[in-house]
């Protein structure tokens, strides 16, 4: 498809601006500061709408079909939340406007709701994404130990952790040590004990982990870590499985982040914007970024006076538009709804796991939570996970997350979540079985998939070697 630049014709315009309603002054900007070219496309409104509408049709979202992308919680995004986020009082409110009581009330109440859901004592809503939340949480941990004059520079992560965990740890100046999983896909406690030295600041746990498995010995792990004077960080990206079932604070978690764009149904927008609020226990409250919304007798206000605060990780207060959607979601479904989300998400995942494990290798065959991970081991005719994923495209499904976690050979990580019906899941299961049959009877059709998409498999090596990153 042509680029918007290739549709440009000299003299076309896509916008009309009002005439200047004040007297024009000359030479307001010295010549040396002026630009002499402006290379942007010249296109009319009709061409723009057709161009980007055509592009949208080359894209696949949750509204187009089943999207079992593991660890991403691609649940349905309720439409009413979109309408509410676009209300004038939210969308057109300037961050420094003094007419902000409604916005501050919303932020305050969302903070309280997240505290109730997780058992933590206070949240910051400032981080813009999960990884941003991780960084914020680790900065809090770092500052806490600095204030205690303890030199602790190690973060422990299990090998099943999200890739962002070790990357965030490095960004915060920590050294990362990996502990391996045991045969049950859970933290190897004996190994953990050996690694727990006085240099360890915290352990970063994803609960449930990326195999979709709950750490059954969580209470023992957090006790070991605390006895060592270290803290427990929980990556709450997979909180969907625990809503209304259990509270991370009760596991012994000291710091955690949530992903509003996963668990709380805000749309992913092709990769963002999201929001990654960070919750802490009482003893870490003072370290949260500024400002924090407070409620007084008369009103809500922004408090910038947190002396021990790590500072700020983003301008203003965070992705407010995303907070509005999450708030609206929690209000929509309420306490019972949240619990139903977790119950249905977990039931759906276990149902698919039981059905599919008869046909595909399931290396960790236990009760799962929100997701489970299959392997491509034993696929006929050397058909790989990539082949299966690409063939799924031909059948109209978004593939699962693939090749992650790294501890499973050719991982196929499936997270159905609660907003999918049995019929949808059955149809996906049947398709997976069909692809396995094809791998036996007609492996070429699988290995050369996809066949029905607007482009076939793309040459990633060429893309990286002959870099073409903009239109010239």
């Amino acid at each position: 498809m042509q680029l918007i630049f290739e549709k440009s014709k000299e003299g076309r315009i896509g916008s009309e601006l009002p005439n200047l309603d004040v007297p024009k002054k000359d030479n307001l900007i010295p010549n040396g500061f002026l630009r002499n070219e402006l290379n942007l496309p010249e296109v009319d409104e009709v061409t723009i709408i057709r161009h980007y509408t055509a592009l949208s049709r080359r894209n696949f979202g949750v509204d187009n079909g089943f999207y079992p992308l593991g660890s991403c919680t691609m649940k349905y995004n309720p439409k009413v939340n979109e309408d509410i986020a676009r209300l004038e009082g939210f969308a057109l409110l300037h961050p420094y406007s003094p007419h902000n009581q409604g916005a501050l009330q919303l932020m305050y109440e969302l903070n309280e709701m997240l505290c109730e859901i997780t058992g933590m004592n206070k949240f910051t809503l400032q981080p813009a994404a999960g990884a941003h939340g991780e960084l914020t949480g680790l900065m809090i941990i770092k500052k806490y130990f600095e204030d205690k004059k303890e030199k602790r520079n190690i973060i422990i992560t299990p090998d099943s952790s999200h890739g962002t965990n070790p990357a965030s740890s490095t960004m915060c100046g920590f050294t990362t040590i990996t502990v391996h999983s045991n045969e049950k896909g859970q933290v190897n406690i004996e190994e953990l004990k050996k690694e727990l030295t006085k240099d360890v600041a915290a352990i970063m746990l994803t609960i449930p982990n990326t195999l979709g498995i709950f750490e059954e010995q969580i209470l023992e792990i957090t006790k070991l870590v605390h006895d060592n004077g270290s803290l427990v960080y929980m990556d709450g990206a997979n909180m969907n499985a625990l809503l209304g079932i259990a509270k991370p604070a009760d596991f012994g978690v000291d710091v955690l982040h949530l992903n509003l764009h996963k668990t709380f149904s805000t749309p992913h927008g092709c990769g963002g914007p999201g929001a990654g609020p960070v919750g802490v226990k009482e003893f870490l409250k003072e370290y949260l970024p500024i400002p924090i919304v407070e409620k007084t007798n008369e009103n809500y206000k922004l408090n910038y006076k947190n002396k021990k605060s790590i500072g700020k990780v983003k301008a203003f207060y965070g992705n407010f538009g995303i907070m509005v959607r999450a708030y609206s979601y929690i209000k929509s479904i309420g306490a019972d709804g949240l619990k139903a989300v977790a119950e249905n998400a977990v039931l759906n995942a276990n149902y698919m796991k039981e059905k599919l494990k008869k046909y595909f290798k399931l290396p960790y065959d236990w009760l799962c939570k929100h997701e489970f991970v299959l392997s491509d081991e034993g696929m006929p005719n050397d058909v790989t996970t990539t082949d299966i994923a690409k063939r799924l495209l031909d059948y109209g499904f978004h593939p699962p997350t693939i090749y992650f976690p790294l501890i499973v050979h050719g991982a196929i990580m499936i997270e159905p979540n609660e907003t999918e019906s049995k019929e949808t899941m059955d149809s996906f299961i049947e398709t997976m079985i069909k692809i396995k049959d094809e791998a036996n009877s007609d492996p070429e059709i699988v290995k050369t998939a996809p066949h029905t998409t607007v482009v076939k498999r793309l040459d990633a090596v060429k893309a990286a070697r002959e870099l073409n990153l903009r239109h010239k």
Partner: protein
Amino acid sequence: MRFIPNTNKQREEMLREVGVNSVSELFKDIPKDVLIKSLNLPKGLSEIELKNELRKLGENNKITTSFLGAGAYNHFVPSVVSHIIGRSEFYTAYTPYQPEISQGILQAVYEYQTMICNLTGMDVANASMYDGASALAESCIMAVNITHRNEIIVPETIHPEYGQVVRTYCNAHGFKIVDIKCDNGCSCLDEIRNKVTDKTAAVLIQSPNFFGCVEDLKEIEKIVHDKGAIFVVAVIEPTSLGILCSPGGCGADIFVGEGQSFGNAVNFGGPYLGIMAAKEKYMRHLPGRIVGATVDSEGKKGYLLTLQAREQHIRREKASSNICSNEALCALAATVYLATLGKNLKRLAELNLQKAHYLAGKLKEAGFGLVYDKTFYNEFAVNVKDAKKVYKKLLKKGFVAGYLLDKDSLLLCVTEMNTREEMDELAGVLRN
């Protein structure tokens, strides 16, 4: 619950398939001591109740005539923008990990990267960052990695919230921050000359800066490069690029921007759009996603995420950044906005420039002089004695009179959205 399709009957069938009698058995791997009965939250609301409640909350945020800028700008957003980003094929999709069914966003981001490079005079742009402030902080990490030096020069003419974010990131990394004073509204050149040394990793300059003044980028560039440091230029009000010289043209090595002005509402502070671009030689140090063009197995042109060897999901602790989610939908809004404005971006910038100078002239006539005698775009600081009191008075008259800079000055911003009548009225109320 309306977002859960399965019926009780279906759930029973599924439980049988799993081999358990009840849903609670699915949670038997969680220690009993921590299981809870229910959450202490209200019951769910119907859509009617929800909308009523949220509408009321929204109405508690009164939208009035405003001269606020200071990092968030009230610009016109053409209807085409919201209609395109409102297409659910875009807004309900994840990061384009499966390029064959994500060509739409991938091509749009490729167009975005092209537009950003053309506007800023840089060679490579990434697919977006969280916002301008966090992008500026990431530019410090880039500069330290490139130069293997440890000092970051941060003038006080940078937006204070940006300065705080830079400090927070630099503290975590152990970088040293060196301050530069403000000299008549711009970064003090003499001080920059004295403080840029062979220990300097980066010099951060915002232009137009927090006080609205346009910095002499070409002059600063000489000092920075003379000492082998990285020149980072930040533009928080990017409509100014419609008339101002591109940062690349002024010698910037890394460009950082806040793209909210390009088709994104002010949204009480977010979501916004972190823009980041660099000269080609620093490309591999850029954080975040980058889209590249390639061909498919039949030779047809297509797009995918490339240079992924820099990223966290491949490199883990050795990645150039931990960024994963970004602000793709805001980048799409900016792309559609820039396509819609096209060459009219220059006219839009002129409207901003002229109107701001009109208000500045009117205020001068009314006895309120500018704090600084420097070139400005659409924002300026004005001397107002007892500014807080005046600000409150104006609030009662229905104006948000900008940003309170200190006890005797206000920072005012004028965009194409402000009319002559509003400006005359503001000057009139101030005079009295």
